[in-house]
């Protein structure tokens, strides 16, 4: 059994490995092809193409492609205007991160390193867009030249526009999202990654000037005596937490969905209402309520004391595993409803003939669950399951609200229930070490992406995609 499992894992990895290897193998050929085309343009491009190389849109204008030529020219002018007015400053600022410290007492505005980095990244993105448009402009002009050389009429602007609404609609549809994603997603991600290579944090916060320190933060994380033991302790607990909480939420949700799907259950809507009510209450309010319930003055201890017992420190300083279990329970309370709703939806699409056939073949209820229900539900929900794993891995709220404000002995600025994300918060927000926090978040990102990728590659959703389609 174990051997078969190992073989499965090996096969999955080798299949993925083969695809990756094939991609890399094809890379030189694809690059060569691109270079060959570039060389062709450089060799075969006529004077009009050269004009477009010098100034965007010129070649098109010379070919009397007025609309396109003017548009490209406008892009050139807009880009030059942007760089003259601020882009050049922003690009240089990206390297220096400021040279003049601001001093509000004397009205010296000075430089804000953080803003300069942001604007610098934006300038790089603008430069990249410009490069893409510049190349597109040359390729377009060369295409016109080729058409003219073969005595074909080049595509009119109107036709190209109509293609953008038909054959090339994907370009039209994706243009705006690409710009939006670049500004609202890629820019902050790059910013956060770059912060890890600066000394931003501690005393170095604007108006003080931030500097590039490259890999110093990673070096400090690796060499700091207190850091590594805390990292590995928290990381170990974080993995256990993510696996347990994801499994608990998922299977409890599935179990609840199966239970409420039974024909014999009366008043299903009524029973479904309760988990949904729990789901509807904002998470942090639920967590504060849990904290109060398990506190020394809370109702649970009140009942224990009234019954003649001694109050229990469910979440206090000594309550390492009790607090962890309460965290799991509180997280399950918050997330089982969503798993239940998800599973309910998927179960409603199940083919009942499969169960009928299984029953005819004499399969037990457990067998039916293991062989029919679970594979199908797992297949359909694997991407969601992975996202739940990541969300649980980075679940900030649970222990922040239940047991925040503790630094334990043997831990560096953390407690024994903190997850990496809580530790990150302690360092970057409570203690202002933004750059160190960014460096740790890169490490967390690498870890979670490797785990997610591995799980996804091994999952039926990836391996048996065709089976269910």
């Amino acid at each position, binding site marked *: 059994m174990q051997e078969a499992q190992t073989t499965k894992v090996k096969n999955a990895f080798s299949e993925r490995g083969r695809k990756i290897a094939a991609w890399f193998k094809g890379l030189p050929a694809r690059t060569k092809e691109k270079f060959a085309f570039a*060389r062709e*343009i450089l*060799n075969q491009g006529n004077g009009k*193409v*050269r*004009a477009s*190389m*010098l100034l965007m849109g010129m070649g098109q204008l010379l070919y009397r492609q007025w609309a396109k030529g003017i548009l490209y020219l406008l892009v050139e002018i807009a880009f030059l205007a942007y*760089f*003259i007015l601020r*882009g*050049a*400053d922003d*690009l*240089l*600022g990206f390297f220096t991160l400021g*040279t*003049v410290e*601001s*001093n*509000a*007492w*004397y*009205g*010296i505005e*000075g*430089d*804000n390193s953080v803003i300069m980095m942001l604007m610098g990244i934006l300038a790089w993105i603008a430069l990249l867009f410009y490069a893409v448009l510049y190349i597109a402009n040359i390729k377009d002009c060369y295409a016109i030249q080729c058409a003219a050389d073969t005595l074909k009429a080049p595509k009119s602007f109107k036709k190209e526009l109509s293609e953008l609404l038909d054959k090339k609609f994907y370009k039209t549809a994706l243009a705006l999202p690409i710009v939006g994603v670049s500004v609202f997603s890629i820019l902050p991600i790059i910013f956060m990654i770059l912060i890890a290579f600066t*000394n931003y944090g*501690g*005393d170095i*916060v*604007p*108006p*003080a000037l931030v500097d590039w*320190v490259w890999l*110093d933060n990673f070096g*400090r994380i690796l060499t700091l005596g*207190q850091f590594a033991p805390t990292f590995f302790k928290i990381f170990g607990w974080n993995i256990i937490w993510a696996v347990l909480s994801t499994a608990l939420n998922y299977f409890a949700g599935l179990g609840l969905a199966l239970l409420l799907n039974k024909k014999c259950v009366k008043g299903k809507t009524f029973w479904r209402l309760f988990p949904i009510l729990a789901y509807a209450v904002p998470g942090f309010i639920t967590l504060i309520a849990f904290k*109060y319930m398990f*506190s*020394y*003055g*809370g109702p649970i201890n009140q009942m224990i004391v009234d019954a003649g017992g*001694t*109050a229990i*420190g469910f*979440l*206090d*300083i*000594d309550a390492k595993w009790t607090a962890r279990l309460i965290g799991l329970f509180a997280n399950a309370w918050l997330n089982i409803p969503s798993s239940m709703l998800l599973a309910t939806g998927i179960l409603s699409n199940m083919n009942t003939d499969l169960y009928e056939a299984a029953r005819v073949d004499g399969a037990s209820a457990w067998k039916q669950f293991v062989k029919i229900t679970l594979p199908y539900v797992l297949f359909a929900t694997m991407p969601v399951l992975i996202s739940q794993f990541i969300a649980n891995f980075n679940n900030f709220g649970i222990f922040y609200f239940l047991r925040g*404000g*503790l*630094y*334990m002995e043997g831990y*560096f*600025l953390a407690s024994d229930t903190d997850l990496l994300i809580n530790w990150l918060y*302690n*360092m970057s927000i409570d*203690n202002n070490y933004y750059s160190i926090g960014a460096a740790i978040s890169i490490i967390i990102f690498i870890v979670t992406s490797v785990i997610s990728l591995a799980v996804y590659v091994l999952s039926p959703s990836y391996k048996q995609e065709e089976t269910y389609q």
Partner: protein
Amino acid sequence: MGKNLSAVVAHIAVILAIIITLGLAGAFAQGASAGQGSDRFTGELEEGAVLRILENDTAIKQGYLEELLDAFNAAYAEYGITAVDANMDQYTDLENDGPYGYGPDVLYQANDRIMRYVDGRHIMPLPVDAIDCLDVVGDRAWMAYSATTDGQANIFGVPVNVQGPLLYYRKDLLPENWEEEWDDDKNGVPDMVEYWTDLYRFSKQRKEESGGQEFGYMRSFLEPYFSVGYLYSYGGYTFGNNNTDPSDIGHSAGNAELGGRVIRQLASVMDERCIDDSVTTGAYSALASGEFFATITTPDVYTMFVDEMKADGYSEEYIAENLVTADIPMLPASGDLEDESEGFIECKMMGGVNGYAISSYTDYPNAALAFVNFATSYEMVSRRNELLGIVPARSDVASDVGGLSEVINTNLEEGSIVVMPSIKENAQIWTPLQTFFQDIAKDPYRTAEEYKYDTLEKIKAALVNVDEQIYDAIFTLRG
């Protein structure tokens, strides 16, 4: 190919030339703007100024801010200066908002919050000669707002009120024979509100007699603001050099471990609720119901106790007579609540000084200074005391009001109230201290085998660890 390649290279060269030339020109232009310093407090009021005033929520809710603004606007109408509610969160972050023009012109906050803006120069050093209340506010209150920048000592805020803890107790819950049994010095004041040793003994007795249903003194130890004073009383301190040197952390200094032992002893006569914060909000009703005899908190919540007692059916006269606020009891010099042989020492407590500061980003520094002087005048501080029950930092108002206002001011000047450090590193003391206080308050509720703090050496070691944690939080990751 050559010509085409040259065209591409020429294009790139032109773009690069623009970027480099203009980029460098921009950098030089910025450099040239440096060094245009000027003293902004010229004394000339900026006519037509509109000042955004940030006050605390209580002042807004109780109508004090409205009164203050109306009075100021009437007084300065001839200059066309008006002050308006900044309408921002009371804990607004000037550091992030100010540079972009969103912050207030004048802000009212506690000294630790205001003074963390000094390093970034987000608040202005004030011209000492132009501050009207300079001579009527005590030195310690001014110290909370003073800092040295560029080698020069400056004042960055004007103190308005002093925050310091008081003992609240129920006179009607005193034993009937307290004058015979609990007033050894025959001064007419019950010993249990004068000395921690007696309050400890009384708490123990009350808890035992009620079977753990009623308590003498009760307060959560979780909040360092109310707990760190026990360490201070025996030689501990937060930062060296009058709370200005973050490299010298001293919660374990002197005999601070005796303060730790006092906390452990006090925890033993309460119940487990002193470990977490579940008792904090319930203290008002617990004192009103008589479950607690005494607790410690700040003067501004007096009305909360009154409201709870009224809700329990007590008349205003009865409450006025029996809900008593007193100075913090004295601690035994021995550091043992069961040993009075070495006499008594003052019990120090952490406190704070709230005040006004002026944003460096204001366009109207002179009008803002006029507002601060107006708001800290005798009349306005007296009115603030009437409406909000604050303890005035102005000694003239405090002595006219008398009672606890005078006591707290005296405590501040004599050092019994230790003002929260005004340096930004203060933000990093709370979690390590909170962890320690929770741990030591839990100790009496552990089994004898599990005791972590049954000797002074162990308490000392834990305090050294607290200091190390704070040091780590401040310095270890600094570049």
